[in-house]
């Protein structure tokens, strides 16, 4: 099942998972303050790049086209 959210609601969604943003706008864990890494490119994620959380293992998604392609391809394997 998917829950679809508008970009403006991203901070609230992140808070539900114990995540927030640091002063530079990157996603961090509220407790550890470590930046969240995107699995598609091993890179940190800014709030404006945050596209959701996928497939049960809290894989944080980036909104760029290549991350999207990898997300779509990973979904095919599960069908």
């Amino acid at each position, binding site marked *: 099942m*998917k829950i*679809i959210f508008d*970009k403006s609601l991203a901070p609230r969604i992140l808070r539900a998972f114990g995540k927030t943003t640091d002063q530079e706008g990157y996603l961090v864990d509220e407790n550890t303050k470590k930046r969240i890494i995107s699995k598609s490119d091993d890179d940190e994620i800014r709030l404006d790049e945050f596209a959701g959380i996928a497939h049960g293992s809290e894989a944080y998604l980036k909104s760029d086209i*290549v991350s*999207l392609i990898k997300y779509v391809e990973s979904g095919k394997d599960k069908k």
Partner: protein
Amino acid sequence: MTPKWWDSLVKIAPALEKIDLRVNIKLLDVKVDNRKTDNRSIDFGGLNSEQQEKLLKTLPKFFSDGHEIIEAEYEKRSKDYPKKLGIGNNRKLIDYFAGKIPGADLYALKASVYIKEAFDAGGDVQPLKREVRYRYGRRGINISNLYTAGYFETWIRPMYENMSNKGDFDRSNFLSAFDIVVEQFPFAIFVSKEMSVAEIKKQIKEKISESQKYGIETLNIHGIGTENTLNITRAIETLKREMALKLDIDSKGALYVVKIDLSGK
């Protein structure tokens, strides 16, 4: 028997219990389909504040069973990408180059396919091109330009087939040639708005000289939009005073290509 997550959801929105799962539900926009895969979705923004707060508290539990929470525009684009890949020979081209070019380049190519289809559909592709540039640098943009101009079909694929048909084919040789094409594209110039008339003219002269080294008989100059078209025209006009040029001009909408025949040089 309903799954536990459904029971949790019903606690948030009791009205769901009265609703037939086989129909679209306006309250929470829950779409159900009959396939084995679970394609139900809930529009978070469509819930009232109290429902949203209750749902947020139960969200982490949903992810233990492979559920997702996806931004709306991303969800829309994730459905659009497979459609665009399915247009014409797009998928065949991607499948052809899978395993033949480096993985990162293949992703740049897949992104290029999407960008071109989005451009053809009238969309603004500059943000997408920036994303490719951010991830793959100049090489990514070159791949995008080469793809848009058709060179993956007209140059790179024939190059691979020609090389691979020889008995002593070594993929590393193809990859070296591919690198030259992608990094230097000896047969083409892609004019961008950052390039002045002087810069375009300089690149044309350099490419003509390089083409003679590689035995390439055509140099194509590509531009999109009025400003780039004008600058290409001005550069060519200046060059014509310095050297004899055999030209063929192809203009389709915003796309402008000047082909310089180098076979006599």
